[in-house]
């Protein structure tokens, strides 16, 4: 049983490294129900479970991609402990009664989890702030930046698409947009001290 689980874990990690979409799909099918059950039995909804699980998976995914992942347990355990911690934190924040942290006896079992939880939360904050900032930026800045950064288009292409006289004025425009985006971004996002 354990052996089988280890094989599955290895296959998933390998799949993620090779950008195999099936690996993510399997990850989802294997481990989401567990998180869903945990969140639902702790006064959460399916959407909450989805958010929590995706935050955890993003950290997991990025760590694999960056080669930083050091698993000393099964993926299932790792994801569960992160999701558990995330959800408990969120609960204690939304709770009217308990201002302190929710007591969690399992946190000592995995010291690495705390870092990953922190990372997942920061990730989420940054992502939302960035999405908000992009939304408020307005056209054509938004498309321009998205084209350049998200779709990785070259500057000459952008010049052509937006009808700028030359690459320099396009670059000029890009930096103006970037400055505004930065301002908007830091309105939303506080750098953790």
């Amino acid at each position, binding site marked *: 049983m354990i052996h089988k689980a280890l094989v599955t874990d290895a296959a998933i990690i390998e799949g993620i490294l090779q950008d195999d979409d099936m690996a993510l799909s399997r990850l989802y*099918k294997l481990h989401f129900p567990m998180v869903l059950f945990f969140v639902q039995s702790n006064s959460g909804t399916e959407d909450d479970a*989805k958010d929590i699980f995706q935050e955890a998976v993003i950290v997991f995914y990025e760590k694999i991609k960056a080669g930083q992942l050091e698993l000393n347990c099964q993926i299932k355990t790792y994801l569960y402990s992160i999701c558990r911690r995330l959800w408990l934190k969120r609960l204690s924040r939304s709770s009217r009664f308990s201002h302190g942290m929710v007591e969690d006896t399992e946190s000592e079992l995995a010291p690495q989890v705390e870092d990953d939880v922190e990372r997942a939360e920061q990730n989420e904050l940054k992502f939302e702030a960035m999405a908000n900032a992009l939304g408020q930026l307005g056209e054509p800045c938004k498309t321009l930046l998205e084209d350049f950064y998200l779709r990785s288009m070259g500057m000459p292409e952008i010049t052509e698409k937006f009808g700028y006289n030359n690459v320099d004025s396009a670059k000029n425009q890009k930096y103006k947009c*970037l400055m505004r985006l930065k301002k908007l971004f830091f309105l939303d996002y506080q750098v953790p001290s």
Partner: protein
Amino acid sequence: MSDRELLELLERFHQHQVTSAEKRELQERMAADPVFAQRVREAELFTAALQNHGQQKSLRDRLNQHHQAWQQENQKAAPAAAPVLRRRTPIQIFMRRYSATMAVAATVAIVTVFSSLLGMEMWRSATQQQTARYVELRREVEDLKRKQNAILSSSTTTPKNASVNPGQFSGTGFVLTSDGYFVTSYHVIEGADSLMIENKSGTKYKVEEIYSDQVRDLALLRVTDTAFTGFGKLPYSFKQKESDLGERVFTLGYPREDIVFGEGTLSSRSGVYGDTASYQISVPLNPGNSGGPLLDDRGNMIGVISGKMLGVDGAAFAVKSAYLLTLLEQLPEHRLPKPISLPKVNNLAGTSRPQQLKKLQDFVYMVKVYN
């Protein structure tokens, strides 16, 4: 350095297009100027977030797709479960959260209520039983009395007599035939190791059990003492027929160390719980009276005292003599060492009560039970 220049620099830095001189300059300035360093860090964070944004967005989209796929698979499997989960009224939530607690509380309440009701009922029935309870009148000789007795007898009689064990129980019995047969209640001698009879004048005989009838509460004894020569002629006879209601009756017994006379009337021809084998009599009786003879005005033996009802006024009971006689008739011959010849003549009829008692008291004995 303006923000724009900084961003440009970082962009080039990211694309590995910076010279080592520029890099060193940047690091030196960051070390020297903390405000600048903060700006650089912010800019780095921002660019990283922006560059990450695309990747994360696509990753999130993919995850959402997986989620939808998963949802479709699972919703098909359990289409009914989801809507129920969604539409929950506050009452349902409350019930769900506290149902276990409420179940425990309810159980405790139910158990408490029923056990207390049951307990009250049991207590009530127990006390009721106590108020009207049939008791057998054999006397338990308490330690206290034994001591008192010892002191008394040591002062009055010889020390040899004082050391005699008075027995644990005592009752009354009477002579059946002059050649040594003796009758008492079964419950008096129940569980006895050895038996001793003693009358008012201090005559003591050792007796043994011949036959006992637990149902009718009768016991037939026989004197085994070697010194025994016979009781003498019996003054009373045994009545075969049932006596009439309202007849004056009396008894002699040993509720204490001395013989006690008790008188009353026959108040019912059936005993406790409608038992036709006994009479109800209105004679004041006490523990120790059991086994005593019940006689009518003419000196006929009509019953054997058996017990009384606690909590009911003046209700004592005696086994009818007719049953004693049938018992004797039915006894198998081989169980008897000698055939029983009952007295036929009654010497008591027509004499006054004190005269009757004078004659009687030699034939009524205290039965001492040792076990």
